[in-house]
């Protein structure tokens, strides 16, 4: 944690900014802060240990805005001793509602950026001198800077780097880059930086390839037990899912890990384990995903992708590729897809076409080298040009990456060799650069330092895919090549479904190679070239070349011969003589041009060695195929292939043809290759056909066999005749037929029985039938009886003797069951009691539960109305009904009482109203009353025209409004009420029918009572009223108009009614109007009926 002294010292060498005598500027991570802590608090707290220059409090909030955790970065000038003291004093102490977690933080990335910039500048000034020494130095230094154990905390990702071991040096470089990129994008958020960290941590990948970054760590995870946890943590931190506690614990763990670095032994000094709550439910999904590489990579990549997506759209495109990545690693398809990213064009054209076919990619692959040749559009070309420049700058780096590859492969070859190649072959390397533009190796560092510039960053951004491919290749190199080949080969074999191919995995591998080389000749060559350049006389070439091939492996049909061709191809590429005259592919042209390289004998040897390795296998395979098919393949090969023979190879190779192929000269390669390929295809197809035929024949023979063979036992019962037929066929002589028949019977039917046996068997079949009469308890009795009599036919017991089960028995059975259940219940009770006593708790529920369960079972009774006992179950509904009726009545009465209250009101109001209106028509009132009452009485019988009533009603209402506006405000309400159409009145009436009903009836009754006194004959009433109308003049037009209607008198009646109501009691009107309005339609109906 406290940073090993050497690290610090090295830091100082590099970055004097951070170093001051004893007191160094340190960045401390202070976690677990309470909510209300201010910067000054922190400053005060830490000022006793050193000089606090800057405090930065960061609060993480969840979706709802609740702060989940608060931490701070404190820049402090502090001595080593003080730091330790500070840690020991403050760490894990409670302070203002939080448990402090103090760790060394990595310096803020801005600092680092500035620092690295400086370094880069320094490098540029003296690049050559730096080269050799700095490889180690820089790597180490960088590693210290980035991987200083204490620095991780915020990002949580450092650990991965730390655990990487050999690749750490590269990591630093990557992180450096990430920073640069970040800066260029102006994204200053520390969180993003942290998130990036995982990708940076991966040695061979650029930040742009988050998926790759995540993938690698996974591999690591499996090696170290702790790593998984960390991984989880990192993910958690990204997701912000965790409770604070867990995070704390995790942080503690991380601390731990950082301290221990490589050695897991020391981890346990702090808490390597989590403490979880009782209700903890571990997220198994998460765990699983972490363990399963595929899922995790996706998740994390997506995370990182988001971040990157903010910068560039191209990243999105990349996502798709990434998503498919995990599968790729497993399947041949994957390899196929790997090819895409490896192509420069893909990177360049990320935004446009990610999903182009592999062939298309091949074509574009060479584009960056020679833009004019490319098929791509101008814009693309321009992009390519830019890239090309950037690549050119990076050229030295590329070589280094190759060297790195070698290193990874474990060959420990020397860099200088690469350097040599660098100088001469920069141009040629450019192609390779395109594919491997973002080398993250330590070697790159020193060369790459020079190239740290915006352009590069841009280029790297554009070429995320490229880096991706890069990573893949590196991965492949990391793995033992043969193993990888096997896997892929096996997969391929599955795909192709070729059985013969499956026979030998090695064979498949070789075929694969051949395939790749055949179909993707150009890329292969490029790769091979690179390999040859990089590894001058080293066995590394093998590693570099083969992975390249692997990467290029498409899903194509393979032929055994191709292997040889592929090998020959590689040889061609390696050899300088390779100038393509035919140049079938425009893309292939550049290659020969660049074929200036001098092949070292060593490389040849290596290749020959390889050949020797492969050829035996191939030979086997070919031999196997040959057995099935014709030998055309072997025959065809030599003529095409053999133009040149390497002596070494010939010696090494066992079979002439194969050796020939391997020793092929480069001149006519392309043409030959193509021809060969075609021929090989044809041959292969032929072979397959032959094979098919063979299989077919064999199968046909199988079918035919039974005819030829005699003594097969046929287990079919119904095909006696068939067997006979066959036997007759076999034996032509009729005399022998009998014998054959017998044979047929004896041999053909194993369980065949003679005729009498048949009858027996029938009986047997019946014998084993289940006899229903013996079933059950009674049946058992019967059975006993039967057995008592023995087999005597006369006393055969059948169902007639079956006694019906006595109820007693049933009862017994039931009782038994009951007792059993009771026993169990009792037992359970007992056990529960014991449980109770053991647990010292009161378990009231369980017993009751048991009782309930029993009751439930007993409660189900079939109701039998005839049984008197069951009267209990009868529900007496009548009482309820009666009660309800009574209640209803009561309710009604209550409801009816309400109108009485209103009656009181009516008295009060009437007096007022009367006073108001009496002066106008004192005398009229009484007379008017009478007709209205009459109307009420007649209402059912009298005839009223609807139209008349309606209009009159409406008009009268208007009349009321006029009159009442002056008098009373209440009336206005009434008016509003009245102005509404008739139907409305009805609705109101319906709303509380009881009340209205009763009231209206009562009122009517009252009115009728009154009317009884005053009722004149209806005939008299009409003329009188016509003259007395309050609102209408005697010869009102309206009235006249209505007189046209068949029942002219009726409207008058209605008018009278309204008038009466109006004149007598206003309050009553409120009620009665409703009723009246409702009555009108009724009357109308009545009239109609009449």
């Amino acid at each position, binding site marked *: 944690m406290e940073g090993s002294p050497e690290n610090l010292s090295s830091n100082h060498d590099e970055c004097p900014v951070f170093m001051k005598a004893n007191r160094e500027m340190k960045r401390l991570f202070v976690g677990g802060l309470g909510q209300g802590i201010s910067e000054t608090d922190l400053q005060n707290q830490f000022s006793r240990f050193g000089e606090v220059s800057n405090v930065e409090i960061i609060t993480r909030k969840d979706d709802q805005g609740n702060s989940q955790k608060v931490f701070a970065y404190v820049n402090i000038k502090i001595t080593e001793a003080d730091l330790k003291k500070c840690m020991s004093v403050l760490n894990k102490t409670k302070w203002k509602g939080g448990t402090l977690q103090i760790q060394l933080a990595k310096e803020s990335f801005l600092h680092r950026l500035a620092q690295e910039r400086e370094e880069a500048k320094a490098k540029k000034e003296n690049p050559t001198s730096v080269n050799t020494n700095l490889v180690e130095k820089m790597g180490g230094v960088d590693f210290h800077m980035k991987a200083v154990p204490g620095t991780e905390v915020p990002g949580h990702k450092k650990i991965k780097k730390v655990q990487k071991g050999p690749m750490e040096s590269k990591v630093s470089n990557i992180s450096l880059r990430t920073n640069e990129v970040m800066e260029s994008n102006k994204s200053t958020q520390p969180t993003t930086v942290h998130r990036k960290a995982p990708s940076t941590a991966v040695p061979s990948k650029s930040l742009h390839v988050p998926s790759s970054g995540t993938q690698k760590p996974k591999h690591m995870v499996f090696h170290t037990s702790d790593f998984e946890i960390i991984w989880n943590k990192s993910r958690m931190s990204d997701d912000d899912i965790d409770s604070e506690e867990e995070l704390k614990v995790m942080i503690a763990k991380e601390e731990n890990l950082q301290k221990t670095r490589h050695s897991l*032994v020391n981890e346990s000094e702090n808490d390597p384990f*989590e403490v979880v709550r009782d209700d903890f439910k*571990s997220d198994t999904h998460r765990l699983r995903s972490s363990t399963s590489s595929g899922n995790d990579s996706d998740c994390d990549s997506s995370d990182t992708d988001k971040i990157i997506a903010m910068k560039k759209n191209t990243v999105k495109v990349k996502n798709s590729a990434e998503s498919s990545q995990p599968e790729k690693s497993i399947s041949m398809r994957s390899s196929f897809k790997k090819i895409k990213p490896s192509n420069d064009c893909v990177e360049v054209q990320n935004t446009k076409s990610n999903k182009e076919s592999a062939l298309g990619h091949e074509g574009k692959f060479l584009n960056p080298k020679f833009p004019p040749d490319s098929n791509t559009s101008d814009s693309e070309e321009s992009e390519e040009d830019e890239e090309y420049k950037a690549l050119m700058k990076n050229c030295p780096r590329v070589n280094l990456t190759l060297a790195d590859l070698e290193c990874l492969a474990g060959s420990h070859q020397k860099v200088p060799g690469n350097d040599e190649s660098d100088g001469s072959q920069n141009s040629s390397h450019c192609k390779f650069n395109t594919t491997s533009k973002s080398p993250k190796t330590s070697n790159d560092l020193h060369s790459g330092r020079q190239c740290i510039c915006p352009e590069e960053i841009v280029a790297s951004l554009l070429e995320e895919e490229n880096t991706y491919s890069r990573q893949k290749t590196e991965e492949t190199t990391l793995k033992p090549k043969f193993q990888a080949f096997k896997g892929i080969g096996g997969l391929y074999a599955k795909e192709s479904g070729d059985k013969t191919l499956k026979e030998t995995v090695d064979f498949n591998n070789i075929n694969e190679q051949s395939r790749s080389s055949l179909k993707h000749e150009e890329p292969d060559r490029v790769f091979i070239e690179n390999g040859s350049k990089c590894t001058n006389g080293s066995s590394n070439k093998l590693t570099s070349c083969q992975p390249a091939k692997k990467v290029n492996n498409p899903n194509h049909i393979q032929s055994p011969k191709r292997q040889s061709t592929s090998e020959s191809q590689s040889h061609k590429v390696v050899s300088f003589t390779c100038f393509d005259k035919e140049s079938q592919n425009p893309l292939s042209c550049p290659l020969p041009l660049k074929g200036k390289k001098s092949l070292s004998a060593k490389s040849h040897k290596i290749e020959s060695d390889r050949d020797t390795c492969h050829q035996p296998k191939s030979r086997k395979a070919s031999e196997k195929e040959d057995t099935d098919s014709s030998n055309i393949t072997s025959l065809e090969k030599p003529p095409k292939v053999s133009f040149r023979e390497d002596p070494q190879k010939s010696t090494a190779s066992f079979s002439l043809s194969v050796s020939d192929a391997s020793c092929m000269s480069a001149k006519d390669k392309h043409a030959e290759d193509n021809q060969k390929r075609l021929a090989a295809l044809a041959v292969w197809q032929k072979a397959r056909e032959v094979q098919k035929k063979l299989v077919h024949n064999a199968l046909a023979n199988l079918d035919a066999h039974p005819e030829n063979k005699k003594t097969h036992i046929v287990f079919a019962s119904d095909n006696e005749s068939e067997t006979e037929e066959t036997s007759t066929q076999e034996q032509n002589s009729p005399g022998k037929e009998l014998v054959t028949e017998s044979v047929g019977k004896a041999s053909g039917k194993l369980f065949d029985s003679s005729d009498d046996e048949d009858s027996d068997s029938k009986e047997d079949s019946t014998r084993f039938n289940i006899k229903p009469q013996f079933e059950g308890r009674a049946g058992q009795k019967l059975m006993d009886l039967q057995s008592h009599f023995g087999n005597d036919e006369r006393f055969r017991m059948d169902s007639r003797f079956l006694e019906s089960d006595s109820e007693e028995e049933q009862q017994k059975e039931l009782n038994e069951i009951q007792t059993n259940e009771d026993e169990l219940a009792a037992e359970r009770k007992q*056990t*529960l009691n014991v449980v109770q006593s053991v647990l010292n708790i009161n378990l009231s529920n369980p017993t009751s*539960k048991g009782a309930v369960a029993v009751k439930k079972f007993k409660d189900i009774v079939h109701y039998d109305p005839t049984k008197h006992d069951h009267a209990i179950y009868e529900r007496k509904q009548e009482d309820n009904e009666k009660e309800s009726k009574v209640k209803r009545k009561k309710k009604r009465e209550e409801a009816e009482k309400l109108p009485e209250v209103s009656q009181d009101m009516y008295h009060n109001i009437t007096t007022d109203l009367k006073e108001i209106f009496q002066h106008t028509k004192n005398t009229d009132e009484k007379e008017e009353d009478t007709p209205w009452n009459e109307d009420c009485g007649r209402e059912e019988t009298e005839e009223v025209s609807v139209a008349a009533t309606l209009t009159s009603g409406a008009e009268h209402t208007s009349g009321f409004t006029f009159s009442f506006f002056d008098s009373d405000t209440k009336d206005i309400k009434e008016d509003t009420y009245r102005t509404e159409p008739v139907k409305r009145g009805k609705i109101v009436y319906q709303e509380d029918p009881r009340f209205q009903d009763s009231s209206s009836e009562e009122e009517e009754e009252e009115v009728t009572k009154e009317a009884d006194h005053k009722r004149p004959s209806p005939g008299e009433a009409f003329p009188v009223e016509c003259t007395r109308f309050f609102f209408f003049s005697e010869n009102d037009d309206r009235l006249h108009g209505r007189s046209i209607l068949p029942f002219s008198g009726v409207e008058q009646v209605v008018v009278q009614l309204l008038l009466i109501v109006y004149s007598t009691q206003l309050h009553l009107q409120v009620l009665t109007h409703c009723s009246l309005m409702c009555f009108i339609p009724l009357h109308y109906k009545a009239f109609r009926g009449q």
Partner: protein
Amino acid sequence: MRPLTEEETRVMFEKIAKYIGENLQLLVDRPDGTYCFRLHNDRVYYVSEMILKLAANISGEKLVSLGTCFGKFTKTHKFRLHVTALDYLAPYAKYKVWIKPGAEQSFLYGNHVLKSGLGRITENTSQYQGVVVYSMADIPLGFGVAAKSTQDCRKVDPMAIVVFHQADIGEYVRHEETLT
């Protein structure tokens, strides 16, 4: 085959309660049917009523096992849990310990869990508390007894034993002949 005596029941329940606490009543009083404990050849079997009825048809000396064996009574009438009970203990376990993948194998070979192998532990686990041991992927691996409380676990050195081994699923292979 006979029901347990009260004393036996008590002894057994005391043992089981160390692991699942009051969840024990869930074993005895299950909503999905009647389950009971039966003693057979000194072993305690947790049997559903249905199985019990079926097993009643088999004579005692011929009956090898029925239901799920929870453990056996030793000659000194102590109860010893078997790993076969894990299926019933794990879901109800109150105190759990997760061990790291690296330590899994060691545990599955019958070794105690060292602190270095401790991945996660339920808080407030007291000393000698029965715990169920899980892998980090939440697969129950066995059970044991906490040798150290959660707090003590923080302090002890990495090679200290934190969980005493009692039973693990490796016994299905190692003690195949004795497990019934």
